């Protein structure tokens, strides 16, 4: 039910993001979702890629501090209130969100949101009960 996310530590200086993307590009790795959390000093680049294990290996080899995190890939309707619907469910269950970002691709008229929550098991349970679809790695690869 979880999707493997690649996180990379980047110093906040020109060329570092490009260097990270260059490494992925050279190894023919496709990015399907990307976001950056930034501070004045450093940033954390978070991505969903088609080959996470390979991405982890090549980034490590290139010397980037890198780790994997399990996140939820939640399907929401791509219209006003679509995301809110999912967030309301989590809020009612008292699940707090650490961060979220969205997919580049859509699945028909649905949008895909990546969520990192504090209590993942509980989040899966309440979202499932509310009939919200969550994607697996394989399903994402097929999009």
């Amino acid at each position, binding site marked *: 039910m979880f999707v493997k*996310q690649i*996180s990379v*530590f980047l*110093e906040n200086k020109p060329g570092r993001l490009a260097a990270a993307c260059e490494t992925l590009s050279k190894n023919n790795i496709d990015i399907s979702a990307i976001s950056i959390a930034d*501070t004045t*000093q450093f940033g954390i680049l978070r991505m969903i890629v088609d080959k996470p294990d390979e991405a982890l290996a090549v980034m490590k080899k290139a*010397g980037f*501090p*890198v780790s994997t995190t399990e996140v939820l890939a939640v399907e929401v309707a791509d219209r006003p209130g679509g995301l809110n619907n999912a967030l309301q469910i989590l809020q009612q269950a008292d699940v707090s969100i650490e961060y979220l970002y969205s997919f580049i691709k859509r699945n028909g008229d649905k949008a895909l949101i990546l969520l990192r929550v504090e209590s993942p098991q509980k989040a899966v349970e309440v979202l499932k009960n509310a009939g919200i679809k969550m994607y697996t790695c394989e399903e994402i690869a097929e999009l």
Partner: protein
Amino acid sequence: MYWNKTRECMQREQLKAYQLQKLKETIDLVYHNVESYRHKMQQAGIIPEDIKTLDDLKKLPFTTKQDLRDNYPNGLFATPESEIIRIHASSGTTGKPTVVGYTRRDIANWAELIARCLTMAGGKKNSVVQVAYGYGLFTGGLGFHYGTEKLGAMVIPVSGGNTKRQIMLMKDLKTTILACTPSYALHIAETIEEMGLDRNEIKLKAGIFGAEPCTENMRKEIEQKLGIKAHDIYGLSEVIGPGVACECSYQNGLHISEDFFIPEIIDPVTGETLPPGQKGELVITTIDKEALPVIRYRTRDITSLNYEPCPCGRTFARLGKIMGRTDDMLIIRGVNVFPSQIESVLMAVGETEPHYQLIVDRTDNLDSLEIRVEVSEKLFADEVRKLEDIRKKIASNIYTTLGINVNVRLVEPHTIERSEGKAKRVIDKRKL
């Protein structure tokens, strides 16, 4: 157990009288036999007869490593070359090596010092001492070798390297005392584990480790892994070699053989002598050396002296753990800062040896210290908050330890410049 109770447990007053007599002899020796010392004393307007009390030692100029370099190879020798029976030399990573010489009596005295150290570590006539310090120009190997023979124990002169052979000999010859650097001791311990050897097959009881700094954590790790007691030893070739000071079984400071050396602690900046207990640069005067006596030699090692009585019964003062080198010392807003102190904080936070760099700058007449820490796999977390917490933790631990505010910057691995494998630790941008 003592090797030489008369000397090692001498009462302070008696020791002082002995030191004064030997100091006078040494000053006489260098004044009349070493051009460089005579010249320096004349410049300072001092003659040997001016040394009337131990306190008068303060009047004499310091000797530095540079003096040895300037007089390369044997300009500071106080005896004719025919009296020298051995030479050792320091590695000399910068420029020429430092050459040191020994007369027959010096070699015998050095062996006496090592015999004392071995006895502090429980060494006896029936001990088996494995010397895994390098043999050759380095003082470690041969220094221990002669000391072990003097003690009457059996020496295994295996020298450094070939760890599996070391372990085989250790097992087959039933080594009881290991002498090497602490990092090599740790390597031996790890290799024993890897080889899957039963600890009971190794008869090792104690280790005497020196020639490089050893943190308390490292000592504990060695003791636990090898199941032994680890004794810290101190020495430097310019003074004699290993054996200047060593820890007794109480492991609370290193007893310095004051019948051979007069230690002082000075402020490395002003050169003023500091009272006992205060931390500063160790300065040593040899008082029973023939070939190469040194007067107020600046060791550049930072430590303190403890004159409190030791439960072991030895009356010699104890050196604290070496806290760093004066070469590395930074003065930031009036506070003396050693990179080693920062390193300890980083190790405690990250649990691994960190790659770091200190950037010192001065803006609007105020010093600033930035610590750049390479983010290792272990330190990296996916959340900004966790990384910020690490930064704050490092900064607050440094504030607690040193009392200065620092800015911690997390940087990518391999971005800190390395010279010959060692990272360049300090960049001082201040224009002083």
